[in-house]
């Protein structure tokens, strides 16, 4: 057992860090949930893609660099330490792409992945519906067979990035006679196609970070079905771990935030406030634990010969543990920062570097809700890991 980086990995880390130091914008980009901010984040993704850093873990033929899971973790550590912009393409990069790599056809991968990496196509997810949130299998949006494809109808909601995104993916009921998780098909569709209406929904911070999507007989060709029709639930669940676990919120993100929290404590902490000092320490300890958890999974994946895109280390139940952990950590970490800021924590115009803590806190509050509520995850852990009765 060792935690040493071999020279090749250290070189990879240095190269990534060097590129980021030279290219990450000095001033933060405008919010990704505004038209201007979205466009600037798209440009940033294109620069990453030109350096083959947009999706390091993908095979080289689709624009990646065949990075191992450990290399990906290191990339993420450097990205967040360098204050890299929010990844506008993350739904595609971290959820759809692994699904295509595992279940898609070669034609789909060649057609979809390279423009995804360049952010020519930004993808939104379309899972939840007004009547199907935690109970996703209750979904009612339909896919009806038509000549050469399918007609999609229904309503999807809480679709992150859908306001400005180009395309979306989700589950649709293709067999009206089947119930629950049977008879669902995994489909991709164009958000600008005829019959699609996107209604922005303002979030807690006032920005339109997600949207409702209304579909009225939207045509989708057969080539945009992932896997077999009717097999959508299995395919979605096999990659659900990607949405919840390491790849959605990588350890590097929390490690960087914990380091910034320690800096904030030096700058703004009251040395006599042992309780707050203890919370700063706890946030760092938890971030470090998550980082080490990632190293363990990466080591196991390496010894089993699995890369990140092959689903290494993303087993469903494992990702449920991680999801509860990082989302609780994110809130504790940001709440601690706000408590350090004292009365200034209320200000929306605090400026940098302190202004990011309030934004981060508001964003963190969504963590225990999205990607499967923490209540659902705890039940999954209890039943599938601990073996408690349903």
């Amino acid at each position, binding site marked *: 057992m060792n935690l040493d980086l071999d020279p090749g990995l250290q070189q990879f880390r240095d190269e990534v860090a060097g590129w980021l130091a030279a290219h990450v914008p000095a001033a933060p980009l405008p919010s990704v949930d505004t038209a201007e901010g979205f466009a600037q984040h798209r440009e940033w993704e294109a620069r990453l893609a030109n350096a083959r850093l947009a999706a390091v873990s993908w095979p080289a033929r689709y624009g990646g660099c065949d990075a191992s899971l450990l290399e990906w973790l290191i990339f993420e550590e450097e990205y967040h330490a360098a204050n890299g912009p929010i990844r506008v393409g993350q739904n595609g990069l971290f959820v759809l792409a692994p699904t295509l790599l595992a279940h898609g056809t070669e034609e789909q991968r060649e057609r979809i992945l390279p423009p995804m990496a360049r952010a020519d196509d930004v993808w939104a997810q379309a899972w939840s519906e007004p009547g199907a949130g935690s109970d996703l299998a209750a979904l009612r949006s339909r896919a009806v067979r038509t000549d050469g494809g399918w007609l999609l109808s229904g309503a999807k909601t809480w679709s992150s990035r859908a306001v400005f995104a180009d395309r979306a993916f989700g589950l649709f009921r293709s067999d009206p006679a089947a119930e629950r998780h049977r008879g669902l098909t995994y489909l991709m569709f164009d958000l600008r196609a005829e019959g699609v209406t996107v209604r922005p929904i303002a979030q807690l911070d006032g920005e339109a970070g997600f949207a409702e999507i209304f579909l009225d007989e939207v045509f989708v060709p057969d080539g945009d079905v992932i896997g077999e029709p009717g097999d959508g639930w299995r395919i979605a669940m096999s990659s659900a771990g990607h949405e919840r676990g390491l790849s959605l919120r990588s350890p590097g993100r929390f490690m960087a935030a914990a380091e910034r929290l320690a800096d904030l*404590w030096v*700058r703004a902490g009251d*040395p006599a406030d042992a309780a707050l000092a203890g919370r700063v320490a706890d946030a760092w300890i938890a971030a470090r634990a998550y980082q080490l*958890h990632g190293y363990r999974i990466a080591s196991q994946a390496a010894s089993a010969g699995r890369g990140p895109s092959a689903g290494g280390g993303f087993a469903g139940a494992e990702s449920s543990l991680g999801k509860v952990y990082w989302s609780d950590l994110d809130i504790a970490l940001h709440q601690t920062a706000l408590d350090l800021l004292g009365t200034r924590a209320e200000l929306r115009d605090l400026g940098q570097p302190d202004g990011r803590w309030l934004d981060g806190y508001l964003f963190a509050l969504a963590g225990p809700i999205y990607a499967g509520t923490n209540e659902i995850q*705890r039940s999954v852990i209890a039943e599938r890991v*601990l073996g408690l009765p349903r």
Partner: protein
Amino acid sequence: MDFTLSGEQEQFAAALHDMLADADVPAAARSWAAGDHGPGLDVWRGLAAAGVTALMVPEEHGGLGASAVDLVIACEEIGHHAVPGPAAESLAAVPALLSAPAVDISRLRYAQLPGLPQFSRTGTVKSGGEPADWPARLAAGDPLATLAAPPAMPYAADADIAGLVLLADPDGLWLAEPGTSHPSVDATRTLSEITGTLKLGDSLAIATAVARALDFGALASAAQLLGAGRALLTASVCHARERVQFGQPVGSFQAVKHQLADVLIGLEFARPLVFAAAVALAAHSPSAGRDVSAARVACADAARRAARTALQVHGAIGYTAEHDLVLWLTKVQALAPAWGSQAYHRARVLASLTPCTPRISRTDRTSQPASTTDDSRACG
């Protein structure tokens, strides 16, 4: 990087687990608490035969010179089975101390140990006329050993059963004699006041060795807490699957499930911190102290959560002294504050992250805009 256990290490853990599971440790612990150390020392003899007591003793002194990772594996199993006796002391802290070059163990050869149990207690080492080679004796598990390190650790645990008692205080390292002993919340433990009788090293000379030994002890106790937490979770899950109320197993209720899920999460994410600390200590890394403290904080919190939840899930039966759960509940209660408080370990983590300590007061801060507080960094 390879942050996994080797096949050999997995086998070592499984073998220890099987051995301890067969040894009826709960009965031995109850005998131990009642004053009969015999069955418990049989367990220790088994551990010695498996090489556990020799792990941290260097090979030139008759030990195995194993890695701190192996120590963690063994201590996790010892905690998992709630083995009575001074484990972190005998297996980790004292061997680390006696193998430090700065500590003059030759003086131990001529030590008079009035009132202490003498050699050969566990029968693995024959007592002879010649002065004993202490590291070799420790490697053989005879005797067990303990130490106190005031002010943080004022008492020596289990000095009544230890054949070697040490005191590391601000004046130096001492061979020591136990005095008044106090009962612990863990009925298998006693805490003794001790007095130094023979000086083994001056404080300046042995400060680094003592600090490292205390880190080893804290790491070992963190692993014990992790193992105890795992046992408490397993017991709780078994109980929740079997205990029927309202016509169904109580483990089918979401309120119970979610508490047990949180226990698992706490333990799962404490575990890698323990192994990372072992790797850092073994490598003499400058971050070892920080890493040990991080592991201690996480393991003590996770084990206490496991204990608290185990009691709640078991209900009234768990609150009885008759149920074996009491052995783990009180073990966690006793080990959590041993080897430094949570506050101490959190402060040590924070100090390692922030070489510059904050010095502005709360009143100053509220009157200052953020941009100017940069000037008050206490680096200079």
